């Protein structure tokens, strides 16, 4: 108690609250340590280690092998994770995430603007509820939904276009479900609603008084959007783009269920850690995970900075 009196400074009521507040925080801190900090520590540790086996001899009585191996700290895993299929996967992951984040942001913003400016409260309710559901729809059900509609052999839409218009979705329109084009469409299915959910509150934060004030000062609608609304919304818009990017970057199950051979870094991590072909490549998996962290970490920092800027106007 004496300690807290000295540090608290503003009186006994406040200083007594400090330890209690920390107590309340403990479960959270324990959780963060266990599922976030400890794993990151292991990734950092494992990514730079490699065990090389030089041979093994068998004990004639126990029949067990005695292995001669050596574990060293090395950059080999990092080197390998930037070669061949792993490099391709990283590039494709970034490409897919960037394309879908930007498209998702644009379409999501348009939809959110339409919804927020709608006079029907019912419509707003319905769209936000639907967005909340579809933004969290993913994995195998989503994958099969698209296979059932857009697959080259059996998709309902594919067959409909073929039978009634003679158009091939794959050849004429270039939409290959298991490829970048198709997977982008699938990702947009949950990224656009996510964008609506994130941007709707920001759009609602635009005070009508600002538009009125601008109008009183002789600004056109366009000038208002350009000089008032856009600068206010820009930080939360960019923040949302980053959120979408990270969401797409870390996604895995949906793409895997459509095309498990598609070069994505998350699918590669799965292949080295828990596949049926590659044995004993855990350290390479850690190196790949480290690459993802290296990519996402600066984005998270920028996101935080943008959030701070957003709250200046749209608290």
């Amino acid at each position, binding site marked *: 108690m004496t300690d807290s009196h000295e540090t608290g400074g503003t009186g006994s009521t406040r200083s007594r609250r400090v330890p209690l507040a920390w107590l309340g925080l403990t479960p959270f801190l324990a959780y963060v340590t266990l599922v976030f900090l400890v794993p990151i520590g*292991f990734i950092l540790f494992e990514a730079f280690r490699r065990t090389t086996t030089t041979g093994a001899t068998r004990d004639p009585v126990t029949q067990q092998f005695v292995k001669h191996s050596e574990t060293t700290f090395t950059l080999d895993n990092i080197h390998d994770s930037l070669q061949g299929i792993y490099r391709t996967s990283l590039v494709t992951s970034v490409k897919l995430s960037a394309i879908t984040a930007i498209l998702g942001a644009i379409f999501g913003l348009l939809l959110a603007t339409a919804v927020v400016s709608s006079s029907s409260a019912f419509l707003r309710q319905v769209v936000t509820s639907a967005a909340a559901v579809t933004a969290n729809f993913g994995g195998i059900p989503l994958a099969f939904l698209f296979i059932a509609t857009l697959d080259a052999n*059996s998709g309902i839409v594919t067959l409909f276009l073929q039978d009634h218009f003679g158009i091939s979705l794959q050849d004429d329109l270039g939409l290959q479900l298991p490829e970048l084009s198709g997977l982008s469409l699938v990702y947009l299915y949950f990224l656009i609603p996510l964008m609506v959910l994130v941007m709707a509150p920001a759009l609602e934060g635009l005070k009508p008084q600002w538009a009125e004030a601008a109008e009183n000062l002789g600004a056109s609608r366009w000038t208002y959007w350009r000089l008032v609304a856009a600068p206010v919304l820009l930080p939360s818009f960019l923040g949302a783009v980053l959120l979408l990017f990270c969401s797409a970057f870390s996604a895995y199950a949906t793409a895997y269920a459509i095309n498990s*051979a598609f070069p994505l870094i998350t*699918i590669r991590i799965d*292949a080295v850690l828990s596949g*049926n072909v590659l044995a004993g490549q855990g350290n390479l998996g850690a190196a790949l995970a480290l690459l993802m962290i290296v990519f996402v970490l600066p984005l998270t920092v920028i996101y935080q900075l943008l959030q701070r800027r957003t709250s200046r106007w749209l608290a």
Partner: protein
Amino acid sequence: MQTPRRTRLAGTAALAALGLALAACGSDNSSSPTATGSSSTTTTDWATAQSAEAGGGMEALVAAAQKEGTLNVIALPPTWANYAEIISTFKKKYGIKVNSENPDGASADEINALKSTKGQSSAPDVVDVGNSFALSGAQDGLYAPYKVATWNDIPDGQKDTGGLWTSDYGGYISIGCNATKVGTCPKTIKELDNPAYKNMVALNGDPTESNSAFQGVWALALANGGSADDIQPGIDYVKKLNDEGIFNKTQVTPATVASGATPIVLDWDYLNVAEGTELAKKGQKWEVNDPADGLVSAYYAQAINRSAPHPAAARLWEEYLYSQDPDGGQNLWLKGYARPIELVAMQKNGSADQAAVAKVPPVTDKNPFVPTQDQVTKATATVTKNWAAAVAG
């Protein structure tokens, strides 16, 4: 098909790392596991018994296993090679409870479980893993040596000489084909290269992750001048099929087979035949051919956890799986359209279930394809390096 063995919900970096973390945590609390099982019998320590005979015979083994009362298994999907019946028959026959953990897990998951649950009562007693995991697990000292009573009926090369692992069941890469949709089905690998099969030909997954896809590529290689030393022609053939628009990259699942999204699938014959019986119920014909120009077979392997929490039950399970009785594991696998490892011997001594044999695609395999571990390692490296470029675009 193979996918359910590997389906999981999320694979973010954090999750992957958590696996590593748990694996590492688990290895710390290994508390002399070999000693735990020995108390159940007065004379025999089944944890170190290398055969039923060495431990005092089958009766002693059954008694000790029943005293333990439980068997922990892992990664045995009920719809895979008849495992549902194999497990239920074992339960009934011996009155031993079977805990089936993570039924859809992959070989790597099984190895991770052995490492991370070392010394715990929930650790898997036995594993059923792909060949490369059998070899690496033996090298890592994860398995206990044990030779089943029918040891001599298992071909050499399909078992570790010391008994650390033993091949159990397997099959050939086959071409499954929806005859209702496709019309004339391809019977050989060379016949796949036909414009009529546009967008139809699929492997079961990614060859760097799915063993059946990996072996599928090897079968394609054999038909195109490849060998155990050279898997590249298989990759080149897929590239050709891909360039011609014949190769289908959709992830194969029972749903895509049923809906017709993947009309031609290269996969293990026991999975394709099982798929066929399902489709027949819906009035569709699923034809299965083992391609004569690319006969590739592979077998899974059994191994006992070196620190199994139920050492006697684990050994009894092995005796049961390798039993040639009508209700033994070998015939039950055969009923699941898989080829049990003792099939050749069973055909000779007349113990094989002939009705079940008739349902497995016939194969004349004069030069069985058995690549060495070095050849597998080399082929894996080649596929990892060249696969992505071959199927790009």
